[in-house]
């Protein structure tokens, strides 16, 4: 399946066709929408960062792509194409085979993602029983695991486990698409740096597309090619990383950036978003849920809100592969800052 092993750099690959295309994806849990009308695409060798506050639907989106959703979740999509095949129409067994060989998932919580009652090495062999395990482990600096055949997951640190999981999900099977759902959130800065480095090297060597979910804009700035910003189940803005950081167009994105201490002078107040009560947030989500009737989900918290934002949901404005969902996206940033 993997014919790219020798070729190396993605740059030399034939025309960069989209590996994954998600169009108008909706997911709800027992009727409560978690992802609403998300469209995005991902090319081989590209790292797409997905940011957004907790509960905005990032993980749900990832799960919808791999088809591993909890019972009670319902997926609707205009298209969910992966390497030319429509995933929503695949029989479960084929989908399983795709998961087994072509899509890798690096989970968010490494400590709990391996079965606690079986030694780590044995579990690794469940997934990969090739002879090259030693080499793979050496690549992440964990050859020593081979000498610990009876050690269970709790004996390993989060960073070690995360690297082992990356070995399993990415290095061992060399998938075309790697989905990493907040793989470093629970890790220390130094370990995070190791893991990020590993992912970057992986991309450079094998060229998979990577969907990288995170809370941390700094990480996005460091490793991603493009960014998608989610709010209340919507993809409110996406674009090349440089553009998002220098010229964000959605007020939510701007608020996120303004809240970063590193972008503010020391000791000065940070740009904070108003409106953060549970009531307000759920209200805006619920309102979004009632299709058609609602305005922009971000309106209750938006510093540049217009009357119309409360009534009418903005339609996505696309520019190439990029998108922004805001009534005021066309205006100049200066005008907004005045508001």
């Amino acid at each position, binding site marked *: 399946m993997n014919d790219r092993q020798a070729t190396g750099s993605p740059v030399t690959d034939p025309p960069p066709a989209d590996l994954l295309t998600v169009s108008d994806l909706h997911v709800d849990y027992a009727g409560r929408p978690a992802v609403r009308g998300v469209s995005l695409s991902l090319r081989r060798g590209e790292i797409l960062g997905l940011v957004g*506050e*907790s*509960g905005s639907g990032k993980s749900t989106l990832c799960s919808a792509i791999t088809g591993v959703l909890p019972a009670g979740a319902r997926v609707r999509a205009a298209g969910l194409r992966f390497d030319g095949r429509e995933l929503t129409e695949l029989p479960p067994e084929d989908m399983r085979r795709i998961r087994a060989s072509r899509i890798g998932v690096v989970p968010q919580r490494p400590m709990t993602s391996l079965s606690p009652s079986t030694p780590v090495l044995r579990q690794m062999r469940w997934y990969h029983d090739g002879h090259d395990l030693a080499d793979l482990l050496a690549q992440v600096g964990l050859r020593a695991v081979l000498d610990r055949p009876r050690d269970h997951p709790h004996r390993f640190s989060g960073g070690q486990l995360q690297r082992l999981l990356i070995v399993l999900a990415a290095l061992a099977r060399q998938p075309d698409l790697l989905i990493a759902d907040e793989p470093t*959130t629970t890790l220390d800065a130094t370990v995070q740096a190791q893991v990020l480095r590993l992912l970057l090297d992986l991309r450079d060597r094998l060229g998979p597309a990577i969907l990288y979910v995170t*809370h941390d804009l700094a990480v996005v700035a460091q490793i991603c090619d493009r960014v998608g910003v989610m709010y209340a189940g919507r993809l409110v803005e996406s674009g090349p990383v440089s553009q998002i950081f220098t010229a964000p167009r959605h007020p939510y994105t701007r608020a996120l950036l303004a809240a970063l201490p590193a972008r503010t002078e020391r000791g000065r107040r940070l740009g904070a978003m108003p409106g*953060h009560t*549970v009531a307000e*947030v*759920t209200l805006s989500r619920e309102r979004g849920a009632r299709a058609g009737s609602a305005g922009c989900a971000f309106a209750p918290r938006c510093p540049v809100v217009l009357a119309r934002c409360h009534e009418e949901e903005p339609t996505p404005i696309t520019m190439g592969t990029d998108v922004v969902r805001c009534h005021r996206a066309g205006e100049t940033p200066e005008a907004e800052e005045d508001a």
Partner: protein
Amino acid sequence: MSAVVSAPRGARLLPRDGLTWFGAVCAALFCLLAALGPSLAGDPNATGSDVLAAPSLTHLFGTDQLGRDLLARTAAGTRVSLTVSLAAVALGLLVALPLGIFAGYHGGRLFDDLIMRVLEIVQALPMFVLAMFVIGLSGTATAHLGPIPITMTTKVVLLLGVAFVPYFARVARAATMAETGQEYVAALRVVGVPRLRILFGELLPNVAPAMVVQAFLAMALAVFAEGGLGFLGLGVQLPQATLGNLTGGGTGYLPAGVWWYSVLPGAVMLAGILGFNLIGDALSDSLGGRGTTHVETR
């Protein structure tokens, strides 16, 4: 990491699940029979000439070998069963709650260790064995502890209550430990709130839901245990009817086809146990208590 906590879950008052409804109805009927039955069904000890009569309109539950109305006796028995169980559970809670909370708060220290060891010893004799043991030996007569008479009913209550102590204390301890791990307890200590006030003012309301669940499950257990003791003739004594001694009293007549004598009072007992268990389960689901542990005895 979620900035938005799930909406307050609180106890749902009306059960959603059919099974829970069924349980609530069972428990309600059981309590109703205990509360109103005795005044409606007549004298449970009045003997009539109609001996071992099958259920009929005059005697809904039939009569026993002395011609007594079994409905009246069952009602009276249900009352005993309910009061004994309530009292036993209350007693158990009264003793166990402070013990468990103290032990849990001082988790892992000598005091905790000591309490848990003592409880372990009490538990090494399963509740039923312990109760049977003491009642079997101390006899079913009214004992005198100095000037205080201890009737058989009190004895049963005491025993079941004592037997519940380890069980409740463990739950209370675990709940308290879980709660003590919460940062608000540390915060209260930093603020300088006195220990007793932390324990009983702040922790108790949080430990209570788990205990309520356990109390219901223990009610079921108590109804059962009281019945079992009565069945063996080691419970509250005749002529007082209890669900247990009614069930046990009818065994001799079963082979002759007298099914109602044992079966009906036992069925009432079953209704009670089932009701309390189901309510307990439902509460444990909605109060988010830990998994139900129906343990010990039986």
